[in-house]
């Protein structure tokens, strides 16, 4: 007896893709329309009250790459949250996969590949919108997409581990309230982190989002970053790597009960 499918992450990716074909409409709103609304509602509207000299550039230009990064951050975390808990707890897809020749590494890998697709298309789509607004000024702006992939991996990997460790979706509300939303609001998306008190500033520095924002801003505006792009990228790789190992560990634990 032989199996046609060798263990690989691609079947897991393909499974998510087939599900997405039924539910993509709502995500078009959340990953394209939402950032555009942020750009108009805060960047342009509030921006008309902000003195350009305070930042050295128009406020809309300042927040645009930040909104790009925070959108990718939220998309990556959402995709690693509810669907993953559902596949453990409600639909038990992973248990079915476990009975096929798929290993926990394939499941974690497949989820990350899928999240890369979602994050990459969100970033690319928003970048096109920014170009239409005339906000993209640097020829290296396309580098915002690989930066987004790095941020997506760094933020989704630990959340995959988190989702594999809980049994009720109420924990996601707490993850968003105490983690995702504070980071989105204070990690340099809407105003420079230098304005924060020292203790809060360090919390921003620790979060993966701030590093993603710095990379995204460097790419679209051609500005220098706080600690050099290599430093930011290395820090994100660290989050992604540690999160990946933890996620594989938690997936294995959950599936060997």
């Amino acid at each position, binding site marked *: 007896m032989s199996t046609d499918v060798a263990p690989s992450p691609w079947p897991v990716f393909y499974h998510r893709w087939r599900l997405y074909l039924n*539910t993509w*409409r*709502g*995500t078009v*709103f*959340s990953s394209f*329309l*939402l950032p555009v*609304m*942020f750009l*108009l*509602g*805060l960047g342009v*509207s*509030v921006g*008309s*009250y*902000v*003195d350009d000299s*305070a*930042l050295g550039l128009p*406020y809309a230009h300042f927040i645009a790459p930040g909104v790009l990064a925070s959108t990718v951050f939220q998309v990556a975390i959402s995709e690693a949250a509810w669907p993953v808990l559902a596949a453990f707890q409600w639909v038990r897809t992973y248990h079915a996969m476990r009975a096929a020749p798929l290993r926990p590494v394939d499941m974690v890998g497949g989820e990350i590949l899928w999240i890369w697709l979602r994050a990459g298309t969100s970033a690319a789509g928003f970048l096109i919108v920014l170009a239409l607004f005339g906000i993209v000024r640097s020829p290296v702006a396309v580098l915002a997409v690989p930066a987004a992939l790095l941020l997506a991996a760094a933020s989704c990997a630990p959340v995959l581990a988190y989702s594999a460790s809980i049994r*009720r979706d*109420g*924990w996601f*509300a*707490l993850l968003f*309230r*105490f983690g995702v*939303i*504070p980071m989105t*609001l*204070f990690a340099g998306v*809407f*105003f420079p982190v230098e*304005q*924060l008190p020292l203790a809060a500033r360090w919390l921003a520095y620790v979060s993966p989002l701030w590093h993603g924002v710095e990379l995204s801003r460097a790419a679209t505006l051609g500005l220098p970053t706080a600690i050099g792009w290599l430093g930011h990228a290395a820090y994100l790789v660290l989050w992604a790597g540690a999160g990946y190992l933890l996620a594989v560990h938690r997936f294995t634990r959950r599936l060997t009960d």
Partner: protein
Amino acid sequence: MVTTLVAPRLMRRSFLYRAASVTARNLVATRHSGYLLVVISGFLEPVLYLFSIGFGVGALVGDFHLADGRVISYAAFVAPAMLAASAMNGALSETGYNFFARLKWEKLYDAMVATPLRPFEVALGELLWALARGLIYAVAFLSIMIALDLTTVWWALPALVGSALVGLAFGALGMAVATYMRSWQDFDYLSVATFALFLFSGTFTPADAYPEVLRVVVTLTPLYHGVELLRGFTTGALSLAMVGHALYLAALAVVGLTVAGRRMDRLLCQ
């Protein structure tokens, strides 16, 4: 004799008592530890927005000149809008998402209407619960506003009543909308709609500054009226227009609750 025969009959007569039993059921459900933490921490989000946009972005904006010539801090301008938005979000998360889960997934209301409870009373009980939850958030947020000197104790009291009205209006609207929802995916549209309201209801800039078409559309939407009503109170600038804002919200609450009751009657009893 009294407790077994008379008292139940008396209680059965009051629709308010029956509605309150639905509210009490939700209160018991908060003993579920995860849910309780979620409910308690719900007040945090508008506070974070106040600090980030009100103070953080406010430092870039500087003093804020209103249309009537008064100058207030940008945080004082944004804070009542965050209060209104949190009343909206609190009410919608309870009567939108949780209500939908109980209606479609948990089949909780199928069980309830097998008792003397009628669909309208279930809807009313859920609305009272959303109101109670919203009021706790409003008290917490207004206390923070007072502590930060963004309003005074005396203006906070009418603002509390105002935020209850915003919560009732959105709670009723959310329930009515939830009865038309087909699946969780439909909630993506609801969150986009509430997010659009959150950004464009005169929340972060005065609605007068919007382009004309947008301004007209905005004045028709409910959060705008909530923001204007609460801003009138917390900044201490009363105007006759606030009566109009309050009437709009009250009308929305009545219409929403009526529609929700009728729809539940169709979904559960036919």
